[in-house]
């Protein structure tokens, strides 16, 4: 692709992205739907006193599953990069 076409595509996508962001921040308050969280703010303190832990593990438990998956992936990657050729730590 030549330089001119690349610059044209870049400018067009930047313009679209900027319009989308400014439009959403301008009318941000009408976009948020507060409905369901009011229910959980009423039920949550009855489960356990620490609201942060309750929201992490009960209301958003799926995201904590993703966090645990990230931990596993990070450990596997570090062991792969730094342990090359040295796999036999105490396995025998």
């Amino acid at each position, binding site marked *: 692709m030549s330089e001119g076409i690349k610059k044209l595509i870049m400018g067009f996508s930047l313009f679209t992205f900027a319009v989308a962001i400014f439009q959403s921040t301008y009318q941000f308050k009408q976009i948020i739907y507060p409905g369901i969280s009011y229910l959980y703010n009423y039920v949550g303190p009855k489960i356990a006193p620490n609201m942060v832990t309750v929201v992490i593990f009960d209301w958003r438990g799926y995201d904590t*599953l993703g966090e*645990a998956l990230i931990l*596993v992936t990070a*450990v596997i990657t570090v062991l792969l990069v730094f342990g090359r050729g040295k796999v036999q*730590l105490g396995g025998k």
Partner: protein
Amino acid sequence: MSTILKIFVFPAALVIMCLGVLTILGGHITPGGGFQGGAMIAAALIFCLIIYGLKDSPFHLSHDFLSAVESVGALIFVLLGIAGLAFSGFYLYNLGVDIYHIVPATIQNLFDYPDPTHAGIIPYLNFAVGLKVMVGLTAVVIAFMGFKEYEEESEESEDLNEEEVE
């Protein structure tokens, strides 16, 4: 490392591990929880590793143990979610406190935490995450300190094998 450090570190690491477990256990009442408590236990293990060195450390962490404990921690998390899927319709549904009252009473009593707060499966999830974090951080530090010192014996045996082949 000096002698005073070598005398002091092992009991201090044991007490720090006990405090880390206490942080995990009180995760649903006080600030803390699985991630923070797991990091504290990993700090105690890394303390011992730095002072005594990789070979003489009193906590012997082989590769099999590290991978097994991490897998067990992840499996407990996932299997609790599947239990929620099997008994109600939702993945990771809190079976101890069912908000929608769709689970029979025996299963709710089975998965409840015996505690004044009756927090459901949240403390068990904290326990699983604590296991994962503790083992993961220690594995990374052991990888940085080098596996090479454990490899001296197998390197000698590999050299002998190469001489026999040639």
